[in-house]
């Protein structure tokens, strides 16, 4: 116990001073509230910032994908310009006009052949082979082997008609000039010392149907 320093404070707490002790529980509540406030705010902020970062990452990825895709689209658009597509359309239109599009076209071709052969005193018999698809994936184009057997008849009674050889040349060249694509791929001509007796022409008829959508 030193000099004049107080030995002890009051033991019996007055009412007002005892109120100072009571807030100890309030102190803890206050501290708890502060901790909850700060921790809650921090946790909330972290959560929102994390979500923001996630969204920003998604946005960046989307932007990157769009940039890449835009470049690809631009490249595709540049690759097939409008004029080029029209040109291809026209070419395809022309190509389709040269194809046998249906049975009627084939029958028409046979009729036309006979109409050309008869005046030339050629008896034409046509037979078709097995159809060969030309582009198997789409089965859009096919080749029909057609064999035309020609029996060369005698000239008319007036004798004004051309020789069998000339008539055969005329018919074969006429067949080659047709609009529809009929490739003359084989020709066999037989005859004697005087004249042509028979001929066999093998043509590849190109047929085509509209591509399936």
């Amino acid at each position: 116990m030193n000099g004049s320093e107080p030995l002890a404070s009051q033991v019996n707490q007055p009412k007002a001073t005892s109120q100072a002790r009571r807030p100890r529980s309030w102190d803890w509540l206050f501290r708890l509230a502060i901790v909850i406030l700060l921790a809650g705010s921090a946790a909330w902020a972290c959560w929102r910032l994390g979500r923001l970062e996630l969204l920003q990452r998604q946005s960046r990825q989307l932007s990157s994908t769009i940039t890449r895709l835009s470049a690809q689209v631009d490249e595709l658009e540049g690759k097939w310009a409008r004029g080029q597509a029209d040109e291809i359309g026209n070419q395809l239109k022309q190509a389709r006009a040269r194809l046998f599009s249906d049975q009627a076209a084939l029958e028409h071709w046979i009729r036309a052949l006979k109409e050309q052969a008869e005046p030339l005193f050629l008896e034409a018999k046509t037979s078709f082979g097995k159809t060969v698809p030309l582009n198997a994936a789409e089965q859009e184009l096919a080749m029909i082997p057609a064999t035309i057997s020609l029996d060369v008849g005698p000239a008319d009674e007036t004798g004004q008609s051309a020789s069998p050889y000339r008539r055969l040349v005329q018919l074969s060249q006429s067949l080659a000039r047709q609009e529809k694509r009929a490739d003359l791929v084989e020709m066999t001509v037989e005859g004697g010392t005087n004249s042509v007796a028979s001929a066999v022409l093998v043509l590849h008829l190109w047929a085509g149907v509209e591509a399936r959508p």
Partner: protein
Amino acid sequence: MRLSIARGGRGDAIPSGLTTLSVSWLNGQFKALAVHRGVVRGTWERTGDIEDAAQFAALLREAAQQTGYHGQTVTLLLAHPRLAQQVVDVPPVKGTALQRILQRQVQQQKIFVGEAAWVCQNSLSGKSEPRVVMHLLPAALLNELLLGCRRNGMDLAAVLPVCAALHRQSRQLPLGKGDIALLAGETGGLTTVVVSRGDGHMLLGRTLPGTWNDGAERLAMDLNRTILFMQQKYGVTINKGIWLSGSGAEDLARNVQQHLQLPVGVGAPGYEPFYWARQALTLRPSQSPNFISPELQMRRQRRVFAEVVAAASVLVALALISLVVYASLQARQEAANIAVLSDRLKRLQARQNELQQLAARLSHEKQVASLVLNDRPPPVPAWFLGYLSEVVPAELVVTNLHVQREENCWRVRLAGGYQPAIGNPTPAALSNAVSGLSARLANGPFHVKILTEAEEEKAGQGRAQAGDAAGLIPTWVANVSRGIQAKPAPTDRFTIEGLMR
């Protein structure tokens, strides 16, 4: 012999930075001194005596108004009829045991009804047992003082008995370590006495029954009784002198000296009406017998600290909430961006698919068109048939013609004989004619590459090998036929075979 006291010592200075309302409430006389940052800004004295503690709140309010005090703390130097000092011998124990003993002593020594608030300070013991000076105050009175402050929005930082101020005065006296002096001061008309030793120990504190103004003779008598009491009760002899503090102390000291053998001096030469209130400012509440517990003294600091912490926490929380709001707004904007970008991405993907399909379709159509329009082979057989009429010499006749499209070329096979109308040809004539025909075919528009017999045979083998196993059969037949040689080949026949590009 004249006794004097150092004036204006270093200990008398008001601590700089101290802001408080120092109140001396001495036996009903209420005086207040407003101090702001160590500087006295105003004083106020209540006329008349008020001893009722219930009036403390009103007195304090008026004091604050009159002095212009805007601080928060109040320091009270108190002399009250119910504030008493007792000298108590205690056994040499410490801690809780000492507290219990002191508590028991408080119950025995108190001279009022009800609970007591108390505070002790060490004293000097003539025996082996320690001795303390115990200051006792009714707890209800202290409670009133505290509530009075609280009602005015202030905190009571210290409630000090006036003995403490008087005892502090003794430290400025020219005392040796073993010297013992008596100090008497006027405290609101009454006289408070403190006996103190040179080493700083307070031996006694009491209030005399007579008033300060009852006259020198009465005061001298009371002082003599105190001196005798000290000698008889505690065996302490006051050997250094007596110091008086208060109004008219100089005259009173001279008069008292006439009745006492000990030298009498003036303790506070610069005494003025607010002397005690000013003295209270020089006492350290933590080192003085303060009725306000350290816990209560710290309450305001704790509250300020709590307010600062709360404010800082709220600011931090507000900052975090602002951050959350900002992040939420940004997130909403990003979500909107993502929605826009997703929509754009879908459109782009659809456009890409459309373009890819278009590209595939156009590519296919281009391929089809090219195949149909550009790759059409010319009607070479028809042309060749017509050309024969020009190139076959008159002495030859072609009986067989075969033109066939192969992979990259046309294969031509001509067969015929000599013109019968001309007659039987010699081999040389036939050979010349055939050679001429071959030469014409090799030139001209078709540029037929005439194959020799070996080339024809090789080509024939090649064709046979290219076929399946059944293709070998004609080879066997041909070889057998070649071996049999049934009939010689006719000499008027020819065969020409060639390739056209």
